[in-house]
């Protein structure tokens, strides 16, 4: 165990295998911490973190904030809805102003792909990407792999299928990078219109038949259809999508083996998975949420240890 090879968490693409291993080992310790009667450690007492959310979020924002508070960091929050961004301030100006209030780390979600990479080149602070457009969502991918590792022992050699709206999903891309780095076999499955044209160049299998995909896999990561990002119709109706790509209990029970169901949230119950699947014992959706806090604590702790005052 040593230190991360990077000063920012901009995407899984910039990490190596040892980084992921280190984050997981650190998260193991934090998972023990958050299951104590008193769940807080004083490690980051002298660190201030700004959570900048230029796009809506519930789970990720709460999870980051909780992780920061459990590490005793000071936290300031910002959502674009109530800010001067509306008055025409640029991203660099907004962030630089915040940094001059002596902030050490920035957790940012932004609708534009590459916003975090851009920021990391222009401001002096550790940047954590909490989702940039349809590009990457590294902490989600880390917690997904961590949950698979927890359930199945290791990620290496496992067959994992990502089902649904691959085209608009940052979770899909980060997951593909993270899973491949750890030696898993990755498949994407969904309607042709929602699968990027050259995705097979990343070395993933492509399947349009859900039954074939689920019979192949050990773990299925069910993504949400991102209606808010769709400017045109990618499939005729939601009902038809559900018939082709939705998973219900009957379907799950008819498979050759017992697979694990994951979902990054928020779930559209009855669309990509039904309630009885989401709440079944094959689902690890709530474990993912708990692991999210431990993973984010690990990421923030490891990045903070590289900040020198």
């Amino acid at each position, binding site marked *: 165990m040593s230190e991360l090879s990077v000063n920012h968490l901009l995407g899984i693409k910039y990490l190596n295998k040892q980084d992921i291993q280190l984050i997981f080992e650190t998260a193991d310790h934090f998972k023990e*911490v958050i299951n104590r009667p008193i769940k807080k450690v004083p490690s980051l007492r002298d660190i201030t973190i700004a959570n900048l959310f230029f796009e809506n979020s519930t789970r990720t924002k709460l999870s980051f904030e909780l992780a920061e508070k459990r590490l005793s960091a000071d936290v300031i929050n910002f959502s674009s809805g109530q800010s001067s961004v509306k008055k025409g301030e640029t991203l660099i100006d907004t962030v630089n102003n915040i940094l001059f209030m002596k902030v050490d780390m920035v957790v940012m979600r932004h609708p534009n792909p590459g916003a975090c990479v851009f920021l990391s080149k222009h401001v002096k602070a550790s940047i954590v990407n909490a989702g940039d457009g349809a590009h990457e969502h590294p902490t989600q991918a880390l917690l997904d792999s961590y949950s698979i590792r927890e359930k199945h022992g290791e990620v290496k050699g496992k067959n994992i299928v990502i089902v649904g709206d691959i085209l608009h999903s940052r979770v899909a891309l980060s997951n593909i990078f993270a899973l491949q780095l750890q030696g898993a076999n990755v498949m994407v499955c969904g309607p042709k219109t929602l699968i990027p044209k050259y995705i097979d160049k990343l070395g993933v299998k492509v399947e349009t038949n859900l039954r074939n995909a689920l019979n192949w896999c050990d773990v299925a990561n069910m993504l949400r259809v991102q209606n808010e990002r769709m400017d045109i119709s990618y499939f005729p109706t939601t009902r038809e999508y559900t018939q082709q790509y939705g998973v219900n209990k009957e379907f799950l029970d008819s498979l050759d083996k017992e697979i694990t169901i994951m979902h990054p949230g928020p779930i559209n119950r009855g669309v990509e998975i039904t309630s009885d699947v989401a709440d079944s014992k094959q689902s690890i959706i709530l474990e993912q949420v708990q692991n999210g806090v431990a993973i984010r604590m690990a990421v923030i702790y490891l990045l903070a*240890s590289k900040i020198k005052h």
Partner: protein
Amino acid sequence: MSQKVLLNAKEVNIILHRLACQLIEKHNDFSKTVLIGLQPRGVFLANRIAKILKEDYKVKDIQLGLLDITFFRDDFRRGDKPLEANTTSINFLVENKTIVFIDDVLYTGRSIRAALTAIQSFGRPNEIELLTLIDRRFSRHLPIQPDYRGRQVDVINDEKVKVNWMENDGEDSVYLINK
């Protein structure tokens, strides 16, 4: 670099038995007492003491926990390397118990300060005591003293005390290393 033997295997063994006896004198049957070994190096000593209490002095119920203090240290980001965490394993509450912290070398007292904060996560103990194999005199940064000490030594700051354990280093011994 030169080194000098402070304690050999026989001396370590005698001291461990003496410390165990001192614990029994104070804590009787250990019904209200728990032993907490401090990660990483205090764990070997804690395991030894617990073993001696169980096997040689027939104390039945010894509760032994391991406490990692990494996230509670006050030198986070001040060293060259990131701090490495270890496992904490305390599967009991310390509420209203007497705790004996066990560590191999007491030097500046900063680890013990961190341990005093860390243990609060597991309840409010009645009393906390400190047992240490080696007490480096005149080197404390904080007002912390051991309740049970194996050997008190005078060591200047350039020197290092190294405690070896059979199960980890192949022999029981304590060396004074001059850098």
